[in-house]
Structure formats: C-alpha cells, structure tokens
C-alpha cells in the first residue's frame, strides 16, 4: 500500500483555529499518512514553546456563548479589557471537561508521529520572531519546499 500524503498550510493563530491543523495532522499520521504542516503568518504562533493562544467572540457571531452572555454583553461589552482572557479561560475549561485534547498534547502527538512541522522562514523574518521561542524539531523553509511535498500530496488543505 502506497503511503498517502497530507499537506496542510496553517495560517491562523487563535485557540479555536489551532485545532484543525493539529487534529487532522495527528489523525492522518495515525492512519499511516506522511504529513507535513507549513506554518505561515499567524499560524507561526502555534509553534511557540509557550503557547499563548486566545479565542475571541469579537466579530465572531458564530461563537456560542455560555449563560446567555451574548445577551448580557452586547458587542461593545465584548471589547472590554479582560473579556478575551475570560472567554479563553472558559473555553479551555469547557474543552477540558469534554475530554478534548489540549493543543500542546496534540502537537506533541504530531511530533511523536513524525509529522513534519515547517515554519515559514519569510514570516519569521518579517515579524522578527526569535527562533529560540519556537519548539525543537521543526524546520524553516519557504514556499518552494512546501510545493515539493504538496505537489504530490493526496490531500492538501489551507487552514
């Protein structure tokens, strides 16, 4: 059986958007896929040693709010200082209570399963991000490297 390939571009740096790339990459690896994830722009946040990912209801009418908070806090209320941290804490608590893995856990499963995590060198330079802030075991490369793998992948996702 030929090994299938999954290529993902991860471009978002919020807690909610951190899940799809790591869930899909780790699951595909468990199914025997060879997987590469290319992290660019805000997606680079997902490769930091110290993850400080947050989730915000601001400008996101689709986010379910607990306890009817959306009625108590109309849009402007959601912009109050501390609101994003509060919502993030509630979301993390909810995820834990439902047995949803943490991003750290899924990420280490990806590394364990030899998923190749690639940081976009151009974005790292653009934002002057010190590579010491990133986890070990990742690579730094550009779009050409991505195409080398994505070009003959079976599934290619932009997240």
């Amino acid at each position: 059986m030929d090994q299938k390939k999954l290529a993902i571009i991860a471009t978002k740096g919020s807690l909610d958007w951190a899940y799809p790339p790591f869930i899909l990459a780790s699951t595909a690896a468990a199914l025997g896929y060879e997987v590469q994830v290319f992290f660019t722009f805000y997606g680079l946040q997902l490769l930091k040693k110290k993850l400080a990912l947050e989730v915000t209801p601001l400008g996101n009418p689709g986010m379910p709010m607990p306890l009817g908070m959306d009625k108590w806090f109309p849009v402007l209320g959601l912009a109050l200082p501390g609101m994003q941290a509060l919502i993030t804490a509630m979301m993390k608590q909810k995820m834990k209570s439902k047995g949803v893995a943490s991003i750290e856990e899924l990420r280490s499963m990806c590394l364990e399963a030899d998923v190749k995590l690639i940081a976009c060198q151009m974005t790292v330079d653009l934002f002057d991000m010190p590579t010491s802030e990133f986890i070990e075991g990742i690579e730094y490369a550009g779009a050409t490297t991505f195409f080398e793998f994505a070009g003959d992948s079976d599934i290619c996702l932009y997240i």
Partner: protein
Amino acid sequence: MANFDQELDATGLNCPLPILRAKKTLSSMGSGQVLHVIATDPGSVKDFDAFAKQTGNTLLESKEEGGKFHFLIKKS
C-alpha cells in the same frame, strides 16, 4: 466480550484522542493480537470503523453497552 490481549480505557476522551491512543497502543502490540477499546465518544463508532478500513487492522466487534462503546481490534 471475546478474548483480548490488551485493554485501552478511552472513556471521557473526545475526537481524535481515542483513535490516537488506540493507534499508539496497537503499535506496541504484535500481529494478530487483539485490543479492546472502551470509549464514550459517540463519534468513535464510525471512527473506529473508518480507522480499521484505512489501516488494514480488523474491527472484530463494535457494540454499545450501558452508554459505553466497546471495540475489538485485531492488529494486522
């Protein structure tokens, strides 16, 4: 429940953890050995079926009992 060689308690865990843990446990087992997985995630019923089809391992049994899902997977 038929005989099994190893058991994995994945209760309380949500997608994709039951599959990931099962894969990890299977990789430490020998060919022909049987893994018993217990899960509470309703999505795992279809997922373990799909997992078996895609990895070549055999899903010997899949059933619900008292709100828990039981799977017997034979390693290829």
